[in-house]
């Protein structure tokens, strides 16, 4: 477990990624960052442009972009307090919203397709098929309701704060309580598919579903990290400013 005394050393890693790098080099070195490009509204075909040029074109703060890159590439590299204060919060929220719609449009339907196909496989007995479909439906519902909670409650709340309006009876502290269930179920689902669905229910779709879950798990992990370690601290900082 890495704790506070290590913070400085972890931050050294920030220096690996710089706004002066070529964007193409950045993606080549950390392919996981490819997914960030569309979420920030950037387009491929960078040529030799530097990270900061691409950011400027897309009207994205290079600091925010690098911050998200750092967290996504090296889970542990969390920003310093001073960086959190200066954050461009509306751009961050745009990024989070774009990730949400990617989950809704891409990951969840792909996963659903594989699960439907696993359950529909003739070799899979009907009890196992029912159990797995039911678990997926429940998970999907929970994930979607979590996303819509963020879209409909959390983000508007933050927008209100930015416009110096006060929302009664809500504070960002309540947000974190809501998160962990999604991660736990995802991991359970992965283990059920990997370990406990009977061997007869094995088709290509089961592998597809697992691969999809591994990607989604990583995605959700980083997404939660961004929300818990950047979004929430920034908003509590704003809340404090407001209450003064």
């Amino acid at each position, binding site marked *: *477990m890495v704790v506070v005394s*290590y913070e400085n050393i972890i931050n050294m890693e920030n220096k690996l990624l710089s706004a002066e790098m070529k964007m193409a080099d950045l993606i080549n070195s950390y392919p996981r960052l490819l997914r960030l490009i569309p979420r920030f509204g950037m387009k491929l075909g960078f040529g030799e442009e530097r990270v900061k040029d691409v950011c400027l074109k897309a009207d994205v703060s290079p600091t925010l972009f690098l911050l998200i890159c750092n967290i996504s590439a090296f*889970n542990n590299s969390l920003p310093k307090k001073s960086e959190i204060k200066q954050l461009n919060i509306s751009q961050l929220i745009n990024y989070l919203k774009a990730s949400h719609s990617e989950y809704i449009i891409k990951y969840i339907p792909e996963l659903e397709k594989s699960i439907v196909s696993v359950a529909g496989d003739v070799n899979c007995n009907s*009890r196992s098929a029912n159990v797995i479909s039911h678990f997926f439906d429940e998970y999907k519902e929970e994930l979607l309701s979590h996303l819509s909670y963020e879209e409909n409650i959390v983000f508007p709340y933050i927008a209100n704060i930015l416009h110096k309006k006060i929302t009664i009876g809500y504070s960002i502290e309540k947000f974190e309580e809501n998160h962990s269930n999604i991660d736990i179920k995802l991991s359970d689902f992965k*283990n059920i598919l990997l370990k406990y*669905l009977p061997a007869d229910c094995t088709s290509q779709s089961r592998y597809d579903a697992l691969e999809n879950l591994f990607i989604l798990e990583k995605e959700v992990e980083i997404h939660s990290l961004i929300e818990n370690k950047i979004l929430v601290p920034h908003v509590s900082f704003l809340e404090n400013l407001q209450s003064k």
Partner: protein
Amino acid sequence: MKDKRKYRVVIIEPSVIVQKGIESIIISSGCEFEIVGLFSDFSHYSSFSYTLDPDIFLVNPGIIAFNRKDSIKNYLPESVNVPVAALLYMHVNGESIRQFNGYIDIYDNAAKITDKLREFILKNNSSEVISESFDLSEREKEILISVTSGNTNKEIASNFSISIHTVMSHRKNIIRKIGIKSVSGLTVYALLNGLIEQ
């Protein structure tokens, strides 16, 4: 249990200065530990591996961290179930750190270093005792069934006439063995394994 003998420490660290420093700290801390090997990397260690019988490895993660796909376990013979602690004084990415049973920071003082070493060794020994079997015991199955029918820890405790603490420790063991935490996940497990009917 290995009583009344010193804990045997193997240090794998490329820097001679650091090797000697950590060795002298551990030795001067009293009679609890002895250094049975000092190596600059795992390949030097492996030629002695059968004679040393260490209780703990203290390893500079730098020697494996260069390749993210590399795992510390690849360097140890499979039969070795000994805790591996990281010795940290330069940056290591978080994924690599998590492979270790814990870490010792170069800024830790002597007392903290020995406390940590002891803790890693003892923790590992106790988990060794519990994890003899990966399959759920009959009692764990009963508790699992009870959890899936929606009983609280308190209800389970009173149904089985055991303490809540015992219920919690059963539940922890169930989670550790099957890797499933949520009640609905556990229900799926119980259904697929025929422990309960739909």
